[in-house]
């Protein structure tokens, strides 16, 4: 168990480090990287919204392939991209979606796909529908996979946006799009400090590793992990106070102001082409769904 926690934490830290903070792919001179951040942000919001509205799993797959295509056009290696999209989403969304494949949790009688157990009598449970068999229903499987596909696709667009845009450009874009300033400030600071805190976590894990010999029991490892979480909380609390003083010292009074570091590259015809293509694509995909 302790190994699992260690590995998961280390993996999350590494993932955030290389995926987000390296800005390695955002600096490439490829397709999406050349689109102005503002236009890119709007386009991806359109794509994500369309994905959420799509109900047909095949249409959602079309959207997913679009994200793969955009990724490869932007010279993001699919070997890097796909695992990033598929690591966390199926785990968390899967946990949520899993119960729905069973008839127990469905409001209606479904078409049985696999019968897991036949009780030979009707069981009446409070808050649930009475049933006599536990089975996996085809409607349930279909619903769960649609849900999973929809979330995965939406997240794949979000990740693609992050990978191909420098964070500061994204923050500038949000500002230019008149997002509330406080929201932009908090977002910028969250990004700034998540890494610092993650770095601290990985250092604490290392320091523990360097002193721990032999096998650790799960309980003691959990206790230690709880200590790390506690230390991190205190540290971040202290830091937040100091950061506030640093902001105060430089004139902050609750009202956040912002200027653009560099005048953003002018939106070109290419940006409009991209945005209109995305809109046309989304509309036709959703229309196709209605027609089919």
């Amino acid at each position, binding site marked *: 168990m302790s190994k699992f926690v260690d590995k998961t934490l280390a993996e999350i830290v590494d993932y955030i480090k290389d995926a987000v903070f390296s800005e390695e792919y955002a600096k490439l001179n490829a397709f999406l990287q050349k689109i102005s951040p503002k236009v890119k942000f709007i386009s991806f919001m359109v794509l994500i919204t369309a994905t959420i509205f799509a109900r047909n799993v095949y249409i959602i797959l079309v959207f997913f392939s679009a994200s793969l295509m955009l990724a490869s056009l932007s010279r993001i290696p699919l070997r890097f991209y796909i695992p990033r999209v598929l690591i966390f989403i199926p785990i968390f969304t899967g946990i949520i979606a899993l119960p729905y494949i069973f008839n127990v949790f469905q409001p209606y009688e479904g078409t049985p796909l696999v019968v897991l157990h036949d009780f030979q009598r009707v069981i009446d449970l409070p808050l649930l529908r009475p049933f006599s068999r536990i089975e996996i229903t085809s409607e349930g499987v279909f619903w769960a996979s649609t849900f999973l596909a929809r979330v995965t696709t939406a997240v794949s667009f979000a990740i693609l946006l992050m990978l191909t845009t420098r964070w500061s450009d994204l923050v500038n874009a949000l500002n230019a799009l008149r997002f509330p300033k406080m929201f932009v400030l908090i977002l910028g600071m969250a990004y700034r400090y998540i890494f610092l805190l993650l770095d601290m976590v990985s250092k604490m894990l290392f320091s523990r590793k360097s002193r721990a010999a032999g096998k650790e029991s799960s309980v003691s490892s959990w206790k230690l992990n709880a200590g790390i979480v506690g230390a991190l909380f205190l540290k971040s609390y202290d830091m937040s106070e100091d950061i506030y003083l*640093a902001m105060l010292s430089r*004139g902050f009074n609750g009202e956040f102001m912002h*200027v653009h*570091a560099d005048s953003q590259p002018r939106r070109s015809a290419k940006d409009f082409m991209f945005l209109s293509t995305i809109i046309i694509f989304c509309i036709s995909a959703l229309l196709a769904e209605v027609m089919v």
Partner: protein
Amino acid sequence: MTAKQPVFELENVSYSYPTGTKALESVNMKIYKGERVAILGPNGGGKTTLLEILDGLIPASHGSVKARGMILNDATINSNEMYGFRRKVGFVFQDPDIELFSPTVYDDVAFGPLHLGIPEEEVNIHVERALNLLGIEEIKNKHPYNLSGGEKRKAAIAAVLSIDPEIILLDEPTADLDPSSRAELIEIINRLNHNGKAIITATHDVNAVPELADRVYVLNKKIIAEGTSQKIFSDFELLKENNLEVPEVFKLFEVLQCFGYNCEDLPLSIDEAIEHLTRAVEVNGGHIHLHIHKHTHEEIGKLRSKYEHH
């Protein structure tokens, strides 16, 4: 330092943390325009707290703090009058990760001017000037996470310099720097002082003090001593009591004294040492004479035991 107006005047200033622990006890202090002052003290001696009080970030628990003619207390530090004060006083925090909270270095350097009412179209001029002063124009679009320690420190100083303060408060500016960044930073700080800015440095880096300050306050909750670097560093017992020491250059010349080198005021920094040796060589007709005499070993022994106190 002649007949200048004090920019800071502290009388009987005390501060207790909310937990009741005393951080400062009846501190009296006067700092003048354009001065270079070091606040030297051990860890936990209240240096940072004192700087925070000087910057009007926290109010003193007791006593009066006068800064540029304005009284800093609970009421005034939250008032609008502080804008004028904040444009004249800059505080560089010890941890650059605290100072640099924006997505890019540029945003951080622009933060001060933007929030202190400098018109937006002029902000860019201020930012570029500060970046230029520290020679860090090429990192302006970088995320603070991607900077080296030295670059972070410079960016943090630029973030404060962009408001063009008269007084700069520095908390442990030489901490965590490699030797070359450290030397560069000391030079930058002294150049700022040369341009008329008062520099107040809180530090326990005794080797940096002679290079960064003309006057020193030794602070260990109370003001233990005040005077020129020369005066402070010649009182060994006082330093020892407060977990401090003399600069390495000073120690080296004490060793030379054991070998018959003759001088009264020992140098504290490399610059002073060069001056010192040049003078000694000139006086002695082109050379200095070192030799082992009958007390040399005894004196060296004493010197060793003097510094091996920890």
